[in-house]
């Protein structure tokens, strides 16, 4: 079975990735698996209402731990740490768990050999059934490191289930930005949908997201959401896409009834009208999701 994976990203946050992911899933007829890769602000479950069938802890990288009985507070670890994650306080080295990347430099340099590694739980990975198919989602504990690693694990689980269940499609709701978790969400996907909106900020972020897809060699297309909030900027985005050779897959209008449906925890598929199935068709065609 050939599994195709499409990931929804945006650069700028709040352009409508999650709403669009759920809406596209509702018109995609294939047997599919859904994944929410926005692990530090996950919202897809608020529209898909999954039950919970499995839950597993996520550990990520191990981090440094200091044996205070033996620490003499010499500070060699502090000056060697590149992540500003270990500081001598009141004569003892203290690890800032939110910043430690588990690189082991402190273990290597400590003259007292009083630093070791420990695993800590960084979050939870969950699976639940929804009316549209199984949803894999996760929650990173606050201030957590390792978002990229967690996204990679989530995508692996989604793919495993797709293979086992004979699903032909994975739809992933990606995080905002262009950093670690985005790179981890997009790498190796078959197609990326970049959700933009008519503003200069969104256009600037669209450029960066498109550049990232180029670097990662993942083909992509653009959706202009809420296009009628500024027809002038929609035109600018269209022109930019035309000049750069980026395919515009479709547009979705801003309508109060779409916002109201989301406000009530409902997928606004009906409210989006014909624009939605047309958009899905364009994604399938441009992204070569159908064989």
């Amino acid at each position, binding site marked *: 079975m050939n599994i195709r994976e499409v990931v929804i990203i*945006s*650069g*700028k*946050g*709040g*352009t409508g990735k*999650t709403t669009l992911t759920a809406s596209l899933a509702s018109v995609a007829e294939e047997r599919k698996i859904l994944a929410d890769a*926005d*692990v*530090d*602000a996950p*919202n897809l479950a*608020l529209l898909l209402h999954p039950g919970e069938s499995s839950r597993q802890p996520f550990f990520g*990288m191990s981090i440094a731990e200091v044996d205070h009985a033996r620490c003499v507070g010499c500070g060699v670890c502090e000056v*060697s740490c*590149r*992540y*500003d994650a270990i500081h001598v306080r009141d004569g003892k080295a203290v690890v800032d768990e*939110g*910043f430690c*990347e*588990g*690189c*082991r*430099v402190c273990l*290597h*340099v400590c003259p007292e050999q009083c630093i070791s590694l420990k695993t800590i739980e960084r979050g939870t990975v969950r699976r639940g059934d929804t009316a549209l198919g199984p949803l894999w989602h996760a929650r*990173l504990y*606050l*201030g*957590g*490191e390792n*978002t*990229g690693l967690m996204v990679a694990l989530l995508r692996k689980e989604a793919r495993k289930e797709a293979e086992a269940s004979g699903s032909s499609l994975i739809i992933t709701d990606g*995080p*905002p*930005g*262009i*950093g*670690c*978790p*985005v790179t981890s969400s997009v790498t190796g996907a078959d197609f990326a949908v970049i959700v933009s909106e*008519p*503003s*200069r*900020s969104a256009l*600037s*972020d669209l450029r*960066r997201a498109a*550049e*990232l897809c180029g*670097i990662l060699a993942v083909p992509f297309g653009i959706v202009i959401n809420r296009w009628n*909030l*500024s027809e*002038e*900027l929609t035109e600018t985005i269209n022109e930019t896409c035309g000049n750069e050779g980026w395919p515009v897959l479709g547009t979705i209008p801003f309508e109060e009834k779409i*916002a109201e449906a*989301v*406000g009530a*925890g409902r997928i606004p598929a009906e409210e989006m009208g014909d624009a939605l199935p047309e958009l899905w068709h364009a994604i399938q065609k441009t992204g070569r999701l159908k064989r």
Partner: protein
Amino acid sequence: MKIAVASGKGGTGKTSISASLLLARPDTLAIDLDVEEPNLSILLGSFEGRVIPVTMPIARIKRSKCSSCGKCAEACVYGAIAWLGAGVPVINESLCRGCGLCPRVCPPEALYEEDQVVGEIRSGTCGGISFLEGRLRVGSVNTVRVIEETVKKARSFDETNWLMDCPPGTACPVAASLRHADMALLVTEPTPFGRSDLEGMLEMTADMRIPTALVINKTGMGNIVIDDLCMRFSVDILARYPFSRSAAKSGARGESPFKTDAGWAETTRFLWSEIERRFP
């Protein structure tokens, strides 16, 4: 006073409200820490100043010195050094996090580090306001590094009052920004997504013991109630900005609604007076 404007959810209006607060008090240092998608300058005006590269040491290998012992590959926890049991190891630069361990474990000192650009800082003024912006290079994953360097640079400015426009989410980039703040101003919207992500942010600022207050943006766009969250975390709502198509339109063009919408400007002045009254 160092104020961090954050939100959890993206697109709630962090940058719009940051820009408005800055335009109302131009003696505040503007710091854009949303280094993956820096947009504050778009709303403040034209930038004048200089661009400083942000670098990070990346591992390199001097082939002639390598004894093919494989210790570097064994030590690297990021899997950035591949060694197949013989020959000279290969370094995957995009996975290297610049921790500096491999040169320390290499017996013949074949491994060394070389600075690589991971982003840049724009330092100067924007629309007449003292301005700093971190900007991650596309393709780099070293978000926190760029944030840290931008904050370091901010300490060389005369201004002691800062306004930091923070990244979305609740992961390490936000924690890296918040840890420099005296107070957090959380911008939310009355939607289920806004509420859910606000809850995460409130847990985070409580955990980090940062005094926190709320601003609700786009009131009227949803009717989700957050009173219970305010009670649970003992935080107050300092101001409410109504959803307005005209404000959205001027923001979209890169014009702060502070300049185009009298009601918006009024709310911003009220917000400043509330911040100063409650966080003296």
